[in-house]
């Protein structure tokens, strides 16, 4: 399988400080890959090496099979970068910012004009297109920051903690934009230290700490990797003991037990099994009045693989 982005054994040190130590991963078309780790884990250094902003000490990066270094220029045409810090020109309007980067990426004039209009719609800035960016709110600037990265419709979009310091409303708008992008076939590399963002957006997640990739996989794979399982609590009445005995035989259900006023289950994947579980208890004559699902989160995975909490 040809991946849009492939990184192998990346290394980068600043003097005695090893910032990235042997990181490797790949991203397929339409896939969103998250690098989850605390500040200083090596996420930005990794992105900087992928884009060629930083010379790597060792390792390889290929984009659609073509090697990428700091001196290759044409390959970079297929990369969109959304830096962690705001990278917009406050004295220019949103349209002028987009037009400038469109020219830098060699977009033909008419194509650029059409795409600028699209991006302004996507980022919700169409009604402020001609206002100077210095008059924008922080959230609007963040959205423009992302819009510039999307403008030239790159094969690979790199978002380096794009929601840092953003209000909840703008943050949600940004996350929705990213979800839409992967749906359009763009490969996305998303770094964050917000667990819930990684869980919501990313098809696969790499947990990074001290410059090393500690674990990698889908959320479900990561959770399974550390032996954590989903918990379902049914509030119910009726033949609870009989129902729980039947439920224990359902594939994917690891444990089922009746308790006062309901049934507690430990399962592999609550989302996938819930419908079948409800059907089974209904057949057993149990009336369900409430369902609580408790899925182990990446916080516990991070704690397991790094020995410390993500927020430390």
């Amino acid at each position, binding site marked *: 399988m040809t991946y849009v982005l492939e990184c192998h054994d990346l290394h980068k040190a600043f003097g005695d400080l090893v910032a990235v130590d042997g990181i490797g991963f790949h991203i397929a078309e339409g896939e969103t890959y998250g690098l989850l780790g605390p500040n200083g884990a090596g996420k930005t250094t990794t992105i900087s090496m992928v884009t060629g902003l930083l010379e790597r000490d060792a390792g390889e990066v290929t984009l659609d099979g073509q090697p990428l270094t700091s001196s290759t220029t044409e390959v*970079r045409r297929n990369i969109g970068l959304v830096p962690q810090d705001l990278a917009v020109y406050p004295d220019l309007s949103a349209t002028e910012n987009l037009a400038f980067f469109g020219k830098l*990426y060699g977009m033909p004039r008419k194509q650029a004009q059409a795409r600028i209009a699209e991006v302004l719609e996507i980022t919700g800035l169409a009604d402020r297109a001609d206002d100077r960016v210095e008059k924008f709110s922080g959230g609007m600037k963040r959205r423009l920051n992302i819009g510039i990265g999307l403008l030239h419709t790159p094969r690979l979009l790199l978002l380096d903690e794009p929601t840092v310091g953003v209000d909840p409303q703008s943050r949600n708008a940004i996350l929705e934009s990213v979800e839409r992008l992967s749906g359009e076939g763009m490969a996305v590399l998303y770094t964050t230290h917000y667990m819930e963002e990684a869980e919501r957006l990313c098809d696969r997640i790499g947990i990074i700490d001290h410059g090393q990739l500690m674990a990698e996989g889908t959320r479900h794979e990561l959770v399974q990797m550390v032996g954590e399982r989903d918990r379902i609590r049914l509030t119910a009445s009726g033949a609870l003991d009989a129902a729980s005995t039947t439920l224990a035989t359902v594939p994917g259900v690891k444990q089922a037990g009746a308790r006062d006023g309901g049934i507690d289950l430990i399962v592999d994947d609550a989302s996938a099994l819930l419908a079948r579980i409800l059907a089974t208890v209904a057949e057993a004559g149990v009336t369900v009045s409430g369902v609580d699902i408790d899925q182990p989160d990446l916080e516990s995975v991070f704690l397991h693989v790094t020995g410390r909490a993500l927020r430390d």
Partner: protein
Amino acid sequence: MRRAFTIAAKDTRERIRDRSAIVLGIIAPLGLAAIFSFVFNPIQNFSFHATYAVVNEDGGPASTVFVDQVLGAMQASGTVDVVSVDSVDEARNLVDSGADPFGGGDGIDGAFVFPAGFSDLVQSARPADFEVIINEGNGTAANVAVAVAKSYAGQLDSVRLAVATAEHLGDPVDRLQAGARAASVPQPVDLVDVPAAVKQLGDTTFYAAGLAIFFLFFTVQFGVNGLLEERHAGTLSRLLAAPIPRSMIIVGKMLTAFLLGLVSMIILAVATTLLFGAEWGNPIGVLALILAGIVSAMGIMAIVAGFARTAEQAGTFASIIGVVLGFLGGTFFPIAQAGGLLARLRFLTPHAWFMQGLGDLAGGNLADIIPSVVALLLFGVVTGSVAMLRLRKGLTP
């Protein structure tokens, strides 16, 4: 290269919008030039003018050449006025009395008296005298009259000595021809040893040009500091990630500096000419000096940006360097008049070469500015080369 122009166009648009370049590049120098020109006007105090009388009882070639070529050239440049009088007594009276034959408020500062037969004596290689009448109270004007007379006498002596030597060696010399040759000796050019920049530039032009080159360094700084500002703003990472060679980013910034400098200088030259009557000189020469001046300013300011860590630091360094070079280069006052070490040190600055070039242009022909243009370009090339290495090395997000 198209990408470099794209970056330059973006930068220029930003600079125009934040008005800083307009203020420093045009408004400040224009305003100061107006104030300096109208209020202080010290150059005018240095300007020299004298009125001399001539009594030419000789009428021969040796005296006629002095009157027509030596005094004539000075008269043509506006340095002196010459009035012809009939007798020695009249000349003496005019000098002593300080009479005002032109009614312009100037008295007669000195008189040159050529007795009858002066040219014959010169042509026959015999001792010949002409007289200079001065009033000691007339100071500089009287001294200049004596210096001019001595210089001319020295020229005549040289020719006469050459004729005598040739005859002594047995080479027959046509005395009449030699006399004619003596009569055509060039005018004494070392009359007053005042540097061209001061001698040739009027006060308004001096301040207009001085302030223009002074502020040029600050205007150009807006362009070359762009890299530091992009890094501070976080946009440098985006430029570095774009599909363009890194050198084009630097070229784009340099183009911005060049464009801002050029627009600023041209506006100042035209505005001071139209508004204040400044006389910059031959437009081609002025343009050559402006272009070379911009190159030198770009080189020096780029080296500042190359060694500074932040735009603020670069701004501070640039201000110090700009002011020191400006003062030493004589943009605020004619430092050449101070003489000695200071006057020689000024040529370590591009500002002095720029002013020198304008002075040469005003007092001579286009070719006279070549040394200044070359010196300015050298400043730019040497400092610019070092700066490029530093800036390329510093191209990190």
